[in-house]
């Protein structure tokens, strides 16, 4: 069932060291100690994967480089709001990140392309166990892993999938779906744009509750609901592309992307979403889904500036973005 509705899968675990106050109460010296302890624990872990982690230094980074890491979901906006006393340990393929001294001492995150909740959780779990053997985690029999914000108590886990739901969005069902999901302990939000109005119809689905539900159950729950949403989306797509107007919109979107000389991020994301739908429905055959996913990542404002290697005004960015897309699609 490879219909490309699920773009990527992510699992995040929140952990804290028992003998240090949480980051918000922790002074600079304490933060440095926490950073060192986690780095040491990872380096001395009995696992091949642990040794390949890279320490990312934020001292000489431009603002665009920092924002670009947020655009690529490698760090949070909170993390870059003040990088002092914080650290990022990273691994590529699979993508693993450890944000240190963000909202918790450790925010471990694993991201992979496609729909692979079990595999992503297994890797996060493995790295967590490795750290657990060498660090003294703040853990309570009743409340589970203790976190700076009580919303993360229990497993400290947030599992999520990124979905492309253009047909469901067009059907106007998204707000009803969102309110039904919240009753099931699942949150959905648009990735681009504010609230439920998502430019590009890209949504993030994640578990809301972490206390009183095991990792396995929370993941199973998320998996079931994702599968149901995917099925609904696929059904809606079949219905949608029967209409000449919908097919016309898809092909015109491709035409604009292939010819435009200047294009805003918002417009580009909307058109790319239409083209992505066209590829999935077999209307467009000479462009791959991977290519579209890559373009969506690369045309984000800060990421674009990092690639070009210089700051640009919004107007310059729109021209540069149009150039990039034309080249990628022609």
């Amino acid at each position, binding site marked *: 069932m490879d219909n490309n509705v699920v773009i990527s899968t992510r699992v995040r675990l929140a952990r*804290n060291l*028992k003998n240090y*106050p*949480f980051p*918000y*109460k922790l002074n600079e010296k304490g933060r440095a100690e926490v950073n060192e302890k986690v780095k040491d624990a990872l380096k001395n872990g009995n696992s091949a994967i642990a040794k390949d982690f890279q320490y990312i230094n934020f001292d000489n980074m431009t*603002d*665009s480089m*920092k*924002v670009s890491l*947020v*655009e690529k*979901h490698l760090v949070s*906006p909170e993390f*870059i*709001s003040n990088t002092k006393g914080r650290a990022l340990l990273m691994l590529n393929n699979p993508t693993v990140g450890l944000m240190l001294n963000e*909202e918790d001492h450790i925010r471990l995150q694993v991201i992979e392309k496609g729909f692979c909740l079990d595999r992503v959780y297994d890797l996060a779990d493995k790295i967590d166990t490795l750290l*657990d*053997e*060498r660090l*003294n*985690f*703040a*853990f*309570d*029999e*009743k*409340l*589970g*892993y*203790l*976190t*700076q*914000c*009580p*919303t993360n*108590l*229990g*497993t400290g*886990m*947030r599992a*999520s999938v990124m979905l492309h739901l253009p047909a469901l969005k067009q059907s106007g069902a998204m707000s009803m779906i969102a309110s039904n999901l919240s009753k099931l302990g699942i949150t959905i*939000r648009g*990735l681009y744009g*504010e*609230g439920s109005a998502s430019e590009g119809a890209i949504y*993030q689905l*994640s578990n809301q*509750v*972490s*206390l*009183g539900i095991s*990792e*396995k*159950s929370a993941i199973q729950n998320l998996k079931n609901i994702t599968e149901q949403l995917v099925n609904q989306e696929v059904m809606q797509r079949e219905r949608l592309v029967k209409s000449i107007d919908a097919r016309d919109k898809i092909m015109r979107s491709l035409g604009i992307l292939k010819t435009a000389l200047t294009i805003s991020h918002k417009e580009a994301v909307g058109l790319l979403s239409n083209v992505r739908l066209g590829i999935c429905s077999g209307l467009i055959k000479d462009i791959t889904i991977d290519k579209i996913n890559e373009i969506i990542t690369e045309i*984000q*404002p*800060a990421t674009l*500036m990092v690639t070009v290697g210089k700051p640009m005004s919004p107007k310059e*960015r729109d021209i540069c973005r149009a150039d990039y897309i034309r080249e990628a699609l022609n």
Partner: protein
Amino acid sequence: MKCQKCGKDHANTHVKTIINGDYKEYVLCADCAKEMGYGNIFGNMQQEFSNMLGSFFGNTLPAVSQATHCPSCGSTYYDIADSGKVGCADCYSTFYDLLLPSIRRMHGNTTHCGKKSVAGIEYTETQPKKVSKLENLKAELDKAVKAQNFEEAAKLRDEIKELEKNNG
């Protein structure tokens, strides 16, 4: 603080976000935050969820006479309710009864189920993990002593003592 969207008082949600390539921070009231979708976020536009707790805790603030300090980090219950952030692991045991109603409201539940840290596992013959943890602590102690980091060494010695006591 005034809400930057509607101008009303009692803005308590600090939103940290990326808008068109730039990092932005703003302050919203609970209503506007909810309306703009900052109520339940994870990821790209992650906000400081915690500040919403301020309003969560608001109704359950205890009488002043009850307020005590956390022995480890010095936080009072009021500090936690006000910031929406818990100071340290010991705050949870210090203010357990006070925090519980809010925790129940958030999760619909108050008892953990799932993975356990080795710090929380009782030692048995079939679970040798704790031994390796003990060995690790001893190795760390050696390192601390060699580096003449006596403050750290004292901390580690206490931890080792407690582990041995539990194991023995």
